[in-house]
């Protein structure tokens, strides 16, 4: 069972209109820029996929990666914790113009909702957001006299993640803080696709060092020397 996908274009070919797509990364760290750009290429060539719901911690930066995906008009709704960055011009403009919907979720709740989606936990209670606007309409319960908010799992049709090593069975490692949401999103998506900086044979990763076991990954595509969002933005890159 070899989960290798030869090209980026093939890796994103199955994502349909209206899909819920989790995209890994925290800012540019661990962001699968090449997978995102492949998705934009497909949209430019075919008009699909459109109307996506995207889950990411942020809302993109500059005019590359997630920001470019939004700018291309492919994203109907964004679920994130912090739609700000050094240069969040694209999301800000489109949000204020009513061209994109935003579901704002506290960062830890976002992480836990995604993990819950992957772990088969339909709902959980958290102290986070109790008594705030972000808890409005959510069930509340007390445990040992302390109030908690009920939050629901978050699942996706697809996850696009960036990993460091990947083997043909989908086992993954990450690089430094590039780990962030990536392992969780692999768990929560029906189809998780990882771009890996180096593809190795089965057994090429020490079983002790695997961070995402292959059971959570459906496709692996090698992208050697991947771009870093921060470096691209400092160079003024625009993906258009």
């Amino acid at each position, binding site marked *: *069972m070899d989960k290798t996908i030869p090209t980026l274009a093939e890796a994103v070919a199955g994502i349909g209109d209206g899909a819920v797509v989790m995209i890994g990364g925290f800012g540019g760290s661990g962001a699968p820029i090449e997978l995102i750009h492949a998705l934009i290429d497909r949209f430019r060539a075919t008009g699909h996929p459109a109307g996506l719901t995207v889950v990411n911690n942020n809302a993109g930066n500059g005019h590359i990666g997630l920001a470019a995906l939004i700018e291309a008009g492919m994203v109907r709704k964004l679920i994130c914790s912090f739609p700000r960055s050094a240069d969040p011009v694209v999301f800000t403009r489109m949000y204020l113009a009513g061209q994109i919907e935003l579901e704002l979720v506290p960062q830890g709740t976002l992480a836990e909702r995604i*993990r819950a*989606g*992957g*772990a*088969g*936990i339909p709902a959980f209670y958290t102290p986070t957001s109790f008594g705030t606007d972000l808890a409005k309409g959510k069930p509340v319960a007390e445990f040992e006299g302390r109030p908690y908010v009920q939050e629901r799992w978050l699942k996706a049709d697809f996850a696009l993640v960036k990993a460091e090593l990947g*083997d*043909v*069975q989908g*086992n993954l490692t990450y690089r430094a803080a590039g780990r962030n949401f990536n392992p969780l999103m692999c*768990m929560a998506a029906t189809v998780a696709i990882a771009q890996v900086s180096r593809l190795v*044979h*089965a*057994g090429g*990763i020490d*079983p*002790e060092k*695997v961070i995402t*076991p*292959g*059971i*959570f990954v459906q496709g692996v595509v090698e992208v050697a020397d991947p771009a870093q969002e921060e470096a691209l933005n400092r160079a003024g890159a625009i993906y258009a």
Partner: protein
Amino acid sequence: MSDKLSNAQIAWRAAQDIADGAYVNLGIGFPEMVAKFQPPGRAAIFHTENGILNFGEAPPEGQEDWDLINAGKKAVTLKPGAAFFHHADSFAMVRGGHLDVAILGAYQVAETGDLANWSTGPKGVPAVGGAMDLVHGAKRVAVITEHVTKDGAPKLVDRCTLPLTGVACVTRVYTSLAVIDIEGGRFVLREQLASMPFETLQSLTGARLHRPGPVADLIVPEL
């Protein structure tokens, strides 16, 4: 061929339905035997509750590593592409629907899909392990079992009388006499031993066997 399948033959039959690359959890004891009978060219990836994916056979006697065991506490080995993880991640795999198949033993299976396999009643020490998680987690939950108890009582019943492991969770049962699907709250007979008349099979079964489609001969090799 004898008048019923041996445990090895039941396990062999169950193994034929496991696809290449499938993620599989085998219950401790009898179900572990299924791993021996993967068809040539197919390699399932076996999961064990205690935190290994892609483990292999037992090591030779004397070469056991007692940190490298399966859920039955038996020493195992690793295959290329194995991974270790902690118990919460392990049951995220189970509960989160990431396993393709779980194969368990049974005391009783009901036509509703209910399973009883963890307790024979209030006497003795109860023990449940991961069974209750597996039956509501894996995409497909199958049972392998003798068709009747040692006393000859049906194990396939209309309603379980023993404490339940899970409700409406089993979808296929491989027995010593037949292969039976559970669909819409009914036992649907798919395969039966050619040597046994249907009426005999029905008489050994505690609920009605339905035959909405063709019933194949249950054919297994000598093992």
